[in-house]
């Protein structure tokens, strides 16, 4: 099919799709006035019943925690898929770790990059840990803090050699961290089941509103999710850099 024919076919289909959108959106109430009784009810009970001040984190990890379990395993499975796809090569890597993405413009990194990363890495790690632990109080949570934590080894990769990056984030430790984070979520749910409640029911003491230990199981789940997301993103980074050397192939 020629390009012009493909474009004309697309324009016709896009017009039909636009008509479908128009029909659908004209039936909806205008934005800003959509009634939501479930949301209002959740807002009313979130502080008195669960002692959590961030309603979105409460919905994510406490009220609808089972859906977030599925979401974390989507991330886990996708990282597994990326690792499997990138790992396939005909001959194993021998010898020292090589950097396969070496087309960066700065082979020995300039001093400005190194100074900036020395200053930024501790701030990034601190901010990531703050974001993970304060998930139930302020906007934030496990996922956001986990991704922020994963950018700290990335800064080390940008400013140093690949060997240094590999020393900070070796493959075994990163894979173990990711699996441990994912297992923590299931373990907490199973522990609630074993203690007589239902899966992922909030059985721990709820604590004082506004303190770091409020919310029952939510801080623990936040830590597990933060660990898993951080490990997953660093693992995907390592996979793209083609640095999955199996120990027995050396």
């Amino acid at each position, binding site marked *: 099919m020629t390009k012009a024919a493909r474009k004309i076919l697309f324009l016709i289909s896009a017009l039909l799709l636009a008509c479908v959108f128009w029909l659908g959106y004209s039936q909806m109430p205008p*934005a800003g006035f959509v009634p939501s009784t479930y949301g209002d009810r959740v807002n009313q009970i979130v502080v008195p019943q669960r002692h959590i001040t961030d309603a979105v984190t409460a919905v994510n990890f406490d009220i609808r925690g089972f859906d977030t379990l599925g979401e974390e395993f989507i991330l886990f499975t996708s*990282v597994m898929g990326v690792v499997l796809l990138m790992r396939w090569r005909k001959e194993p890597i021998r010898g020292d770790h090589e950097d396969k993405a070496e087309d960066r413009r700065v082979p020995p990194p300039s001093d400005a990059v190194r100074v900036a990363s020395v200053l930024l890495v501790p701030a990034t790690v601190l901010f990531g840990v703050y974001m993970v632990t304060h998930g139930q109080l302020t906007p934030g949570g496990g996922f956001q803090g986990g991704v922020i934590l994963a950018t700290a080894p990335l800064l080390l990769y940008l400013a140093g050699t690949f060997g240094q990056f590999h020393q900070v984030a070796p493959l075994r430790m990163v894979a173990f961290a990711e699996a441990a984070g994912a297992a923590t979520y299931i373990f907490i749910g199973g522990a609630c089941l074993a203690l007589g409640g239902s899966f992922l029911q909030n059985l721990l003491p709820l604590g004082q509103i506004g303190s770091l230990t409020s919310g029952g199981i939510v801080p623990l789940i936040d830590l597990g999710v933060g660990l898993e997301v951080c490990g997953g993103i660093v693992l995907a980074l390592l996979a793209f850099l083609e640095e999955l050397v199996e120990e027995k192939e050396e």
Partner: protein
Amino acid sequence: MNFLPYLVSAWLFLIGLYGVVTSRNLVHLCICVGVIQSSSYVLLLAIGYRIGRPAPIFIDIKPGTPAVDPVVQALMLTDIVVEVTVMALLLALAVQIHKRNGTLDPNQLHAIKG
């Protein structure tokens, strides 16, 4: 004017689809799939928003004041995680396709051989 978020969402969907159809580079195609996904964020955001109400974080406002819908925002968080997932897998697939065929142009890829 209150229907503008819906219009922006439909526009993003259609322009992303146009990018997918007329793409000449597989990585460009993956990014246009990301634009299509962002249209669903705008739609969910518009559904959850209530005019004049603050964010559902009760640390500095009195608990019990009417706020914006938090359930739809939780759905949006899941949506963003799904975007990372899909983009990572699509990019990995694009790199592997390039490894086999030496080109990233979808028009020049050979048909799937049995």
